[in-house]
């Protein structure tokens, strides 16, 4: 009983308390700060493990805190929330290690790590949110806590990017707020429920609910970078590499995608929204985003920007899966939540390593870097192949289920979208891999000493990348094993569809 | 009929004087015009059977306010070029007539005044012809109030709370004015300048007279028109005279003593108000038998405070300088 109340709180506090302590700590206590960050991350991981066990055995973790009239803040751990929490807890640990290495001797580290931990707390809150209001609360907190991270460098460019980010996300937040209030007004509750809580209202409130649905999707779509709401994402690339990693893999983008998942599955219910005909537009939007993001990625020479457009494209797989209305596709979408995170964070770690150790920011500068930084590029290669959807990496598993789901939903054209996207992914990732491994170093404008002194990145930078790369392989290879994301996602879908 | 004629004439004169007071070409003239305006106003109060107000208006509205304004006008003019003292906005939009703002402002003002006037007139015309207000209750409880004069009863008993706060208003204004004075020492005033024979003798005659009259007003105020405000205002007049005569401050009148005087009224009033609560009464609920002495004590203290405060207000406006060593002192 107490555990069921305390667990969500502890898991939230395990990053919130370090955040506060970090802010209060003198700026030069680097060691202690690192210890607190890592300690919090480890503790969180341990608790998450316990909770995973509990949720699997149908134990409920639920904590309510009185907040608005009739609408308490609810932290509730169901299978879906554990999914995101596990992802964030795991990747937070890796990213923390990475960030400690990355920001060695950089200024403003206290601020960075403080907001970093806050950011994760917000993500955990999003994951644990038991109703739309709680979700909204943490969603907005996430916006705010990531702002300082995006603006961290303090350069005009970074600030400009941060402003763009904020303009988009706060705009989305406003739309979301409107939609949430409206929904509350219509439905009288906001608590997530498997298969949705609006079933009874569809008959009389159909058009209103449709409008609200699209408002909600638009609100979440900003963070999920659905075209045309994606403009902030490539710009936000000015942030330091760990931030980009977190933004793309765990926190911001994932929050948006997770929001869409929640709306479709636990507010409206997949079947209900399918019946209401709400899903086709979402499918179209997601499909368009997938293709558009990939096409844009093709033209980017800047490595992080290319990765950013790749994110735009990849994250929409999640929405796509949810929008097809078939359990298998939804499974694919949901499992991509984790898969994309693990793979994309690897890519950003590697991009950070390249920038940090070799001063490489563009694809065209990467000629032959694979020889000098083999481990980094190996991790990059694995993750990139995963993104393309090559088995046995994680991306394949998601795409497989999406494809099967699309076929099951008789949406053959979605398979075409997947195929196109796979082609385009290959078209922008393979040249990178080719350049890194096979291109001859010194053929660009005769400068051979581009990265003559570049050596492999130091271990705090390297280890997380290798870990996540290995992870993206393992969760693909052992996709059907007991503890794999896919199995867990199957559990989610079974509960969601009431199977 | 004559009363009607008086009324109409008085009102017309009032309006005309008000107009002049605001818009006379020279600011000195405008300011001085406020004196007859105030006096006429006092007459009107008397005509409206409000002798208490009449006395207060004469002393405060006409006397002290005008004195303040004249002092200010002098001070601004002494610094030359008072036109530049016009409000910031005015500096840029110089109209032909420096008194008035631009055409826009005049137009807005006129339209606003007309609209508001029309509405207000309609509202006033719609007021019920008869409304006894609270006078029945006042009459009924007058005997328990400790004051014979209903106005005093209202001021110091029925609505004593307002009055208490009002003394605080005075204190606030004083603090506000005093803090604006500058730390730099003022121009040195030589002994010859300081003593003007005429003013000196005037002061010597008039000040004691005023003190006596105000004492009378205070004492009488319990039952007839008059009271702490009127008495205090009169006393302040004496103070103003002393200031104008550049009378040196007696040695015993240190800054802190002055501040004590200033606060006396509030302290006494507040003290009484709170202390009655010890016996289980409400705030300001005087015991009936003690009502009269308490009121008198409060009035006495209030008179002193009002007088000192008003005097210092005038002094503060008149002499903008302050010796750095003196803190919050009087002139």
């Amino acid at each position, binding site marked *: 009983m107490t555990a069921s109340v305390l667990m969500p709180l502890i898991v939230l506090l395990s990053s919130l308390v370090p955040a506060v302590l970090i802010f209060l700590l003198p700026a030069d206590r680097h060691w202690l700060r690192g210890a607190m960050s890592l300690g919090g991350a480890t503790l969180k991981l341990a608790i998450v493990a316990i909770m995973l066990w509990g949720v699997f055995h149908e134990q409920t973790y639920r904590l309510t805190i009185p907040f608005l009239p009739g609408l308490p803040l609810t932290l509730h751990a169901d299978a879906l929330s554990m999914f995101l929490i596990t992802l964030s807890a795991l990747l937070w640990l890796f990213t923390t290690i990475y960030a400690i290495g990355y920001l060695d001797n950089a200024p403003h580290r206290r601020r960075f790590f403080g907001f970093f931990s806050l950011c994760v707390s917000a993500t955990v809150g999003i994951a644990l949110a038991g109703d739309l209001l709680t979700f909204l609360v943490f969603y907005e907190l996430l916006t705010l806590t990531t702002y300082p991270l995006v603006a961290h460098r303090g350069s005009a460019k970074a600030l400009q990017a941060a402003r763009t980010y904020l303009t988009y996300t706060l705009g989305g937040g406003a739309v979301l707020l409107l939609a949430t209030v409206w929904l509350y007004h219509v439905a009288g509750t906001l608590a997530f429920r498997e298969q949705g809580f609006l079933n009874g209202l569809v008959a009389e409130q159909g058009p209103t609910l449709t409008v609200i649905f699209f408002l909600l999707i638009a609100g979440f779509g900003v963070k999920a970078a659905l075209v045309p709401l994606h403009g902030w994402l490539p710009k936000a690339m000015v942030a330091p590499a760990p931030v980009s990693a977190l933004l793309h893999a765990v926190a911001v983008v994932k929050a948006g995608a997770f929001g869409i998942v929640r709306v479709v599955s636990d507010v409206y219910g997949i079947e209900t929204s399918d019946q209401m005909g709400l899903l086709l537009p979402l499918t179209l939007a997601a499909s368009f985003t997938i293709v558009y993001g990939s096409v844009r990625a093709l033209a980017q020479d800047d490595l992080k920007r290319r990765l950013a457009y790749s994110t735009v494209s990849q994250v929409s797989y999640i929405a796509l899966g949810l929008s097809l209305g078939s359990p298998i596709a939804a499974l694919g979408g949901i499992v991509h939540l984790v898969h994309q995170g693990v793979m994309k964070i690897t890519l950003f770690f590697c991009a950070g390593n390249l920038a940090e150790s070799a001063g490489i*920011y563009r694809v065209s500068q990467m000629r032959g870097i694979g020889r000098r930084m083999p481990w980094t590029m190996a991790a990059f290669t694995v993750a990139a192949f995963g993104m393309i959807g090559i088995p046995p990496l994680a991306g394949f*598993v998601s795409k497989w289920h999406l494809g*099967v789901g699309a076929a099951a939903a008789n949406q*053959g054209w979605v398979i*075409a979208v997947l195929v196109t996207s796979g082609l385009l992914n*290959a078209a922008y990732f393979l040249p990178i891999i080719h350049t890194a491994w*096979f291109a001859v170093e010194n053929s660009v404008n005769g400068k051979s000493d581009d990265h003559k002194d570049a050596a492999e990145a130091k271990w705090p930078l390297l280890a997380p990348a290798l870990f996540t790369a290995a992870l993206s392989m393992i969760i693909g*290879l052992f996709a*059907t094993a007991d503890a794999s994301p896919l199995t867990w996602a199957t559990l989610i879908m079974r509960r969601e569809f009431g199977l | 009929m004559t009363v009607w004629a008086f009324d109409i004439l008085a009102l017309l004169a009032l309006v005309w004087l008000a107009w002049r007071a605001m818009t006379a070409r020279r600011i000195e003239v405008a300011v001085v015009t406020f004196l007859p305006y105030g006096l006429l106003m006092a007459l009107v109060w008397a005509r409206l059977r409000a002798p208490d107000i009449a006395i207060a208006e004469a002393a405060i509205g006409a006397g002290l306010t005008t004195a303040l304004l004249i002092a200010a006008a002098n001070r601004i003019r002494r610094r030359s070029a008072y036109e530049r003292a016009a409000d910031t906005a005015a500096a840029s939009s110089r109209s032909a007539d420096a008194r008035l703002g631009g055409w826009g402002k005049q137009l807005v003002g006129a339209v606003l005044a007309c609209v508001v006037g029309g509405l207000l007139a309609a509202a006033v015309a719609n007021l019920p012809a008869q409304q006894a207000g609270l006078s029945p209750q006042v009459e009924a409880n007058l005997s328990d109030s400790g004051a014979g004069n209903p106005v005093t009863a209202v001021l110091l008993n029925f609505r004593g709370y307002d009055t208490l706060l009002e003394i605080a208003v005075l204190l606030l204004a004083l603090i506000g004015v005093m803090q604006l004075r500058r730390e730099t020492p003022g121009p040195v005033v030589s002994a010859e300048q300081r003593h003007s024979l005429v003013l000196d003798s005037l002061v010597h005659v008039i000040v004691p007279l005023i003190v006596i009259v105000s004492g009378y007003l205070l004492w009488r105020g319990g039952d007839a028109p008059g009271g702490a405000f009127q008495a205090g205002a009169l006393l302040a007049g004496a103070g103003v005279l002393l200031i104008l005569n550049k009378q040196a401050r007696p040695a015993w009148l240190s800054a802190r003593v002055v501040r004590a005087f200033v606060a006396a009224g509030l302290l006494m009033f507040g003290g009484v108000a709170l202390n009655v609560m010890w016996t289980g009464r409400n705030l300001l609920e005087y015991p009936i038998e003690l009502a009269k002495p308490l009121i008198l004590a409060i009035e006495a203290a209030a008179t002193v405070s009002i007088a000192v405060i008003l005097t210092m207000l005038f002094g503060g406006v008149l002499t903008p300088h302050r010796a750095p060593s003196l803190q919050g002192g009087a002139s």
Partner: protein
Amino acid sequence: MSDFLANILSHGGVWLLVIALPMTVAALATIRGARRYVPLLAPWATLPALVVALWAPAGVVADVPWFLLGAQFGLDETGRVFLFLTATIWFIGGVYAQSRSFRDHAGTHFFVLFLLTMAGNLGLVVSLDMASFYMWFAVMTFASYGLVIHSRSPSVMRAGRVYIAMAVIGEVVLFAAMVVLAQSAGTANFEQAQLAGVSPDRWRLVSVLSLLGLGVKAGVIGLHMWMPLSYRAAPTPAAAVMSGAMINAALIGWLRLLPFGQVELPVVGGLFTGLGLLAAFAGVFIGLMQRHPKAVLAYSSVSQMGTMVAALGVALQSAGRWQFALGAVLIYALHHALAKAALFLAQGLSEQAVPSRASRWLTQLALVMPALSLAGAPWTSGALAKAGLKSEIALSSSVWSDWLITLLPIAAVGTVLLMVRFVCLSWPGKAAISQQAAPLPAAISACVMVTLSYSTVWLWPNAGPANAAEVASSPKALWAGAYPVLAGIAIAWLGVKTIKPVRLAPNRLTLPAGDIVVLIEKAGKRLFRLIGKQAINRSATPRQPLA
């Protein structure tokens, strides 16, 4: 002994060894001290596969439910043929690569990629479910890119580009095919999917998609462009395994994926046959106009694979005789794989300086022998394979079979012409004798390969119809094998006489290797110039690097 071996081999874990050994050897490269042993160990990594192919009992299946989407590895008779030929070719290719001149030049990373490709190739053969098949297929495809562009010259880079582009297209289309099938069948297991009663409509879709997806690997006409470029670009051992082993991945893919013997798909079958025939002839025509022997061989592969695709098409149209047809196809595949690999190795040998006249003679023999086999000369393995195939086609109920019976000998004549062309182009001249050169492993491996290409088909148990060997040795069959060869040689001789310098191949009569890819490249460039103007402009202006 054999019981013991059989015991071990019937254990599921053996599949792990088949695939894991190459990968483990490749992984050694990451250990500094062990790195230099990688090239040496590379060929031996195929040993478990060879052992399994030869001695493992059929029907051993390992279910690995926790792997990927629930994997199944195992061996059936089809798999055994492919596993054998794959392992053999990789082994011999690996040995060939041991030549010091090559090994020193290539470096460890070549062998790492070699091993990875090998693992993929072996893995896909033993995969009995779509996901793992697809996985190994992808591993093979992407790792072999490194083999193709091994020498890094601009033309090789272009070849690599074309290769990877086509391969990726094939990958994703294959993905679509599998996804559709998996959904329709409700399972990702090949065998279960074939039996799942999928509607013919879906089968049609799957078949067409797989024709496109796997067709890239098989060089189906229209998707074949990468082949001449890559074979030419890749170093000899790589070209040998690509042309011999990897090309058959497509074949095994089709055999696993399509409902042979279950459902008749006349239209799709017709499509297969039509495209196959087209390839069989077009390969010959374009191949004749090539100036590089490897390109000639590549077009020969196009042509040969075309024949097999045509045969598959026929099989798709007549479900009844599938069991027999399968045997013919398998034998043909085995023959073609070994012969083609031998040709490539021989060609590689012919490019090298030889230490003595005798060895040059050996080289010449190594060139001619498999060429004859491929041409289907009597008593060669080719003769047996072709005979089997023809008889099966004749017995099938397909509307195409008459056509095929008529056309195949003509194609055979074409093949002979191609082989003549090839042998002429790679005939080692007199100047190439050098005392220092002793490419012993290469020579040995080439010879072994040639030998195998002759012997294996005959020795293979249950190859084709029971009396195939007999049939092939009958006078009628001998004639059937001999006349195209004779006709071809005659035509070649005439050609040489009339068009004088065939060996110098006048420019008028040549086509660039990869034929239509040149057009596609031009069109692509123009398109990019149109679309990408903005992007190019933007990237031309120096941009602040992001961090």
